[in-house]
């Protein structure tokens, strides 16, 4: 049994429009001498080189047990559609035991692995990781994600005017790899404090694919959250249609074209997405919301011949 833990934070890039490829490459260049990887199909996507941070801290289990753990956590930042930025951290927890800390070169030779030096309770660690509140993440992974976001957002290449006002979302994930598992098991929840958790039990899988899946899910969950928030703020049926349409406009300009679940995924990730589509049914809710936006647009268009609305709409 192998355990991976991670966290993904998602936010709108602090720039008024989508940034072109060159800007994406420059803001994501977090490690000198390493290339930012980009792809344009089926959706524009760029990912920073992996960065590492060293930890020597207590790893909690649900029971309250703590075990000293030493190693490195991998982090990266990615940008989708030139608009949505994610900071992502991941680590493999290896119950190495031994009780004493080895020289740092040993840990740097296993990047992205944290060795637990004492008795470990991996299921308990998963439970503690997923149950912790939004602000207190395992081994400081949340702060690490936040730091990655801040580093990118602070770039001078960005005009600091995000077109969409939406809260940063936090998705915390745990994946248990068990050779014997045939059908992946997935549980996605949204906590009271807005924390998203994803629990995966998988057959053989590569950590890179798990990270891709978590980031993809976090991205679409953020898109849906942002769209719902815009719809709510547009006060459909309360405000005049022209007002409503003006408030919905950022969604049309900046969000609607980004929905593309599992666009770059394959293998087990597709079946996990398939499961998530049947329940909670993210795409169903997205489609319904998009229809709602378009209906408002259509209605406003129908009213456009009426002078009072037109003056409001096309000021």
């Amino acid at each position, binding site marked *: 049994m192998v355990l991976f833990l991670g966290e993904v934070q998602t936010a709108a890039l602090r720039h008024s429009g989508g940034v072109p490829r060159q800007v994406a490459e420059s803001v994501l260049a977090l*490690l*000198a*001498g*390493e*290339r930012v*990887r*980009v*792809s*344009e*199909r*089926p959706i524009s*996507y760029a990912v920073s*080189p*992996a960065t*590492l*941070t*060293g*930890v*020597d*801290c*207590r790893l909690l289990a649900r029971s309250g047990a703590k075990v*000293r753990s*030493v190693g*490195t*956590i991998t*982090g990266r930042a990615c940008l989708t559609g030139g608009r949505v930025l994610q900071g992502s*951290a991941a680590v493999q927890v290896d119950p190495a035991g031994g009780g004493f*800390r*080895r*020289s*740092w*070169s*040993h840990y*740097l*030779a*296993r*990047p992205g692995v944290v060795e637990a030096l004492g008795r470990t309770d991996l299921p308990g660690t998963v439970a503690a990781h997923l149950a912790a509140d939004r602000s207190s993440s395992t*081994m*400081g*992974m*949340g*702060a*690490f994600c936040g*730091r990655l976001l801040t580093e990118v957002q602070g770039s001078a290449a960005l005009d600091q005017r995000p077109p969409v006002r939406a809260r940063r979302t936090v998705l915390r994930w745990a994946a248990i790899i068990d050779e014997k598992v045939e059908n992946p098991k997935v549980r996605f929840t949204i906590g009271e404090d807005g924390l998203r958790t994803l629990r995966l039990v998988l057959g053989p899988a590569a950590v*890179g*694919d798990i990270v*891709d899946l978590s980031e993809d899910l976090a991205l679409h969950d953020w898109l849906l959250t942002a769209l719902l928030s815009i719809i709510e703020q547009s006060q459909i049926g309360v405000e005049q249609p022209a007002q409503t349409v003006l408030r919905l406009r950022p969604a049309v300009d900046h969000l609607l074209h980004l929905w593309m679940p599992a*666009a*770059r995924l*394959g293998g087990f990730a597709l079946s996990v997405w398939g499961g998530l589509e049947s329940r909670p049914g993210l795409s169903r809710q997205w489609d319904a919301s998009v229809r709602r936006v378009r209906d408002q647009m259509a209605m406003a268009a129908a009213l456009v011949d009426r002078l009072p609305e037109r003056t409001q709409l096309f000021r």
Partner: protein
Amino acid sequence: MIGESEFFESTADDRAKAIPLAHLSVELGHFYSPDLRQHEDFFIEHFRQIGFYYAAARAACEAATPRGNPRISTCVLIDDYFGKLESPRVLVRKLLDAASKAGLEIDYVVRESGSVHTATAPESDPAEPTETGLSLAELVEARLVEDPPPDTTAARPPARQTGWLCNGQRSPATKTHEAMKLPTAWLPPSENAAVNHSIFTDIELWRDDGRQRVWSCAMLAAVWQLLRLGVLRNDGHEVVPPHPLPDADDLPDAWRQLPMVLRANKQAAPFSAYRAMTICAPLFLPVEHAVRTILQQVAVDPGVLAKIVARGADEGLTISPAVVDRIQYQFVDTGPVRGAVPG
């Protein structure tokens, strides 16, 4: 369906370019300007002393090469960063001749300031290099992942702004305190992976001197060792490929006009190697300790490392993935070396 994609594969493995590797790289000398001013006899004596230990290194390498025919290359490092030197025209000949009179052959001559000047852009023509704006020292500094003291989580930001790197927890600053306040108790520093007692080390990587960053000898020597181990890449490409040493008449007057790594022997085994052996005077032990402390904290591209480990395995060798474990030393009497002068 996954569309047409120009996406690079998620692992860096396939991107990192493989470079030729010898079994062993032996450093026959690291010369600073006070020593480089010496007469040829000084170097003949130096290389004669080194010769005994070079023979030992060779024999050990032969014994450790299961399939025989070990590839061994030799090199010297010229410090053209901290002091003024004679022109390459004079100095290179002096060193090569002295080594040859002492029965050794120098395969590569390397100039140290090459790791401070900007690295070559990967796509550029080697004949007309264009610079990327990053030096080897900066590429290595970017890869430092600090050895975390106990109770460090990922929330701790990297403390690279100071130019200092240590192997543990510093003693808290004890400044003079305001009157009427009790002085804070002194606390000792501690080494992270100490064996019973600490040997705490704090290393200056660079100092900003006005507008210029001056890299420390320890940092440059760390870059040097990584170069010899063939693990440095810029965007997946080899950073300073060796260039043939120009004929004596074609050597320039300034070191800066030369490539960093010069191949003096046409038949030489590759410059970089699975393992590196440094033969030097005990005088250099503190610098090498600092180098090892730095190398402990350099996260080399895992793709590059994996390839080297795999290639070693193909040759029947067990190569440690920790670069610091691939470096050996002989601290021996090499004659009256002065090393770098203080100040």
